[in-house]
């Protein structure tokens, strides 16, 4: 690790102010950022810890019936407190990493990072959620812009994520055996505007909506409706753990199983 300063603001305004310092970077659960620093792959001069901002904590339901999760809320808290409102999302949070990761890692950190194999991006995109920042609200469809790339501007903080609660949803995850991130995972949700299918772990461009499956499922919500569909694996992530063709297969299998699990 290189040396850095730490700021521990207790309000969002102070955090935004602190992030205007040169080479400042937000720190949330640190489950991605701290290993990066330890490997000396990043050298921020100041880390602005978001953990002390009370407004960014917690799980609640707003007037429109949306599940609102503060950007600093840990995976463990979501797993426990969202279960009654949105079991599929709570289940997703409950299977991220291991207990240590879930007790530190946060939803804000996960969606800000937008790892192409992360779980939350699938939940957020699959639900058609809204990402709230200190400056604006961004629809999930506009927010995820490619591998490790989002609509966030420099110094912008994810303060909350608002999930419309679908009538039914399921997250199906095939584990990458070493990291236990998704090798490929599918989040399927029945929303007011139709079925949404979000896939993580497969594309070199990060999380994406599988439109063909959405159309097929909106017409006929059954595992059979997606059984005949396939995606092109030639452009997909290909690594030690699976070829693009294999991942393309998993896209179909995970989606089909998610649908089957929704009954």
């Amino acid at each position: 690790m290189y040396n850095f300063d730490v700021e521990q603001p207790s309000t969002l305004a102070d955090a935004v102010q602190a992030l205007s310092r040169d080479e400042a970077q937000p720190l949330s659960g640190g489950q991605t950022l701290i290993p990066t620093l330890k490997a000396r792959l990043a050298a921020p001069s100041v880390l602005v810890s978001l953990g002390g901002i009370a407004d960014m904590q917690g799980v609640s339901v707003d007037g429109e019936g949306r599940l609102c999760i503060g950007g600093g809320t840990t995976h463990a808290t979501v797993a426990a407190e969202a279960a009654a409102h949105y079991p599929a999302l709570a289940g997703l949070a409950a299977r991220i990493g291991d207990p240590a990761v879930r007790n530190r890692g946060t939803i804000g950190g996960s969606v800000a990072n937008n790892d192409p194999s992360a779980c939350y991006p699938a939940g957020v995109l699959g639900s058609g959620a809204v990402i709230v920042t200190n400056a604006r609200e961004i629809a999930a469809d506009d927010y995820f812009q490619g591998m490790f790339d989002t609509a966030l501007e420099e110094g912008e903080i994810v303060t909350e994520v608002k999930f419309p609660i679908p009538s039914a949803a399921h997250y199906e995850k095939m584990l990458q055996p070493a990291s236990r991130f998704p090798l490929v995972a599918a989040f399927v949700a029945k929303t007011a505007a139709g079925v949404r299918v979000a896939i993580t772990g497969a594309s070199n461009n990060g999380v994406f909506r599988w439109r063909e499956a959405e159309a097929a499922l909106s017409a006929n919500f059954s595992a059979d409706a997606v059984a005949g569909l396939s995606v092109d694996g030639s452009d997909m992530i290909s690594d030690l753990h699976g070829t693009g063709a294999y991942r393309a297969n998993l896209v179909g299998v995970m989606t089909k199983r998610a649908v089957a699990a929704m009954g």
Partner: protein
Amino acid sequence: MPKDGGIGASSKRREDVRFLTGNGNYTDDMNMRGQAYVHFLRSDIAHGTINSVDTSAAAGMPGVVQIFTATDFEGVGGMPCGWQVTDKHGEAMQEPGHPVLATGKVRHVGEPIAAVVAESVEQARDAAEAINVDISELPAVVNMKDAVKEGAPKVHDDLTSNLCYDWGFVEENKGAVDQAFVDAAHVTTLELVNNRLVANPMEPRVAIGDYNRSDGEHTLYTTSQNPHVIRLLMGAFVLGIPEHKLRVVAPDVGGGFGTKIFHYQEEAFCTFAAKACNRPVKWTSTRSEAFISDAHGRDHVTKIELALDAAHNFTAIRTDTYANMGAYLSTFAPSVPTWLHGTLMAGNYKTPLIYVNVKAVFTNTVPVDAYRGAGRPEATFQLERLVDKAAHELGVDPIALRRQNFITEFPYATPVAVEYDTGDYVATMDRLEEMADAAGFKARRAASEANGKLRGLGVNCYIEACGIAPSNLVGQLGARAGLYESATVRVNATGGLVVMTGSHSHGQGHETSFAQVVAEMIGIDENMVEIVHGDTARTPMGMGTYGSRSIAVGGSAMVRATEKIIAKAKKIASHLLEASEGDIELKDGAFSVAGTDKSVAWGDVTLAAYVPHNYPLEDIEPGLEETAFYDPSNFTYPSGAYACEVELDPETGQVTIERFSAADDFGNIINPMIVSGQVHGGLAQGIGQALLENCAYDADGQLQSASYMDYAMPRASDLPFYDVDHSCQTPCTHNPLGVKGCGEAGAIGSPPAVVNAVLDAMRSGGKDVGHIDMPVTPSRVWAAMNG
């Protein structure tokens, strides 16, 4: 009736109290007054010419004590290799130099180029980043078959090629073996890869060098399985320090699995730098460094063939293996694919003719050396996969084919130069079939199929050679060391014992099981016996712990020393009891005169030895301390039969292990619980190799699985509840305890069972692919199913 102490009792591991309460004393827990820290600047290029190493900017960085490069080691010997293999033409292997810090060229990612000693680790790292290294990159050789082609880039320019040796075993048999293949009724051929592994002990390597200017003594604290071996190799060959000025301490060590046998550059560096800097120098490997600097394991590419006659008797085996040495010869690397591999190729079968060819190859990768099982897993995997394949080609039951060819008479001299003293392969297979409930498999398969899954059952046998090894024999085979073991038993005046053993415990539980043996021999409570190991200043000599040799060789030395103690104590007792020595009996910690009720307690005898007021001073010396060295007359040959049952998800290729049964014959058992634990750990590593672990390099020599994000270690949830049994016991005939060793069996015996089971499952789904390489990942299974 289970015993509650002594040999055969499942005594709880006494060392676990300190380990589980955070009171272990590992090398990194030790800190010397005034110590400095070293950070190694390692190559991130697999192969290149070093044009310059400019340390001028780094030298002025905060906290820097001294920076070392290859020039500082010009007067120092290179890292020695402890085994010289002679090739099939009678020529010595090619043995390249192995510098402490890269000299002239870098040859693998991770090779240390420079070392910065500083006041803190972070300062050392900062300064290392300021070192300017100019390297002209050269094409890397990674694939072994490419490496031995004409015109391939050479890892070592001063060698004639990348071929370390071309070994034929037994060369004189080759013609007869080839003829047997011509005459065979059936020939089964199999090509396979034995995947490269990273050992990944929980504790990474650590070294602390310390130098005492007042008496000129060097001390090295290190994470080693064999501190005396390090003292000899480093003292005599690298730094030129005589043993009496060099102490090596390996305190609690958190797992080794082979990779902590070897002498590493970091150890020599810290010892050297402590004197040069006049202060202790400490190095603690990060996990990232461990991946690119700990010796790797396995990495064979093999073609094996089996010849059978019309009645399905095995008539010959022929193998052709490429074994990766990596960029340099690690301490025992040449012995692994040869003497620890070729000699096991008979397995459990009475195949009359065998020929093994091994080409050891240099590549631009981390050196490869012994890893749990070392050579024997590679032999077992190819043989047991081959026999299974033969059975399927012939349409016969794989267990029946094995049984038909089992060796049943002992001693048995194999055609590959070893003699099995005892064994009962029929008994372990019988036991296995009961444990695995082979009869119930059909119903379990039907249940899986009803859930859309495939189910497979795989079986294999194994034999291994442990209790390494008769010194005169290994000397003939090229070992540059003897492989005896020593023990000193010191009895204190009040009757307690301290046993100083040259074996080293780094997870095996010696402090418990060794004490059980001595306590049993004397008939006293185990807690009166303390086991000391891991310090060259306390134990006379030690060849260390590997090759499942500790109880068979180290335990035997301890038995011999204890026998001497008992003999002397009997003399003292006969004096105290005024009886003739021949009438003295030792039982339950008391000496008595046969046929009388006269007796004297153990503690009274030991007290007399140290307070010799009433003592036969004219016949024997006071005191009660004895040392013995034990050199085995043969290897020991543990054997067994394993069964694995898997479920396979045909849509994802995911394999889960549903049952695993292991029937082992380890001869006599000292502590059944510890033995089961050793088997459990070995199985985890064997299953890890079979399903998960994949040390992969890309074509440029970059390690692709260089962290736990990509290198999959087995987790508890990847493993089933094992069913292990060691009730089949054919005691070793040539050591005093009748023990064989159990540390590696699980890792040796399990990979073929897993792969055989996966292939069985695939066949039941209509796909007969003949073979699938490890690790059997979901992606590979799916590709094979859909290929």
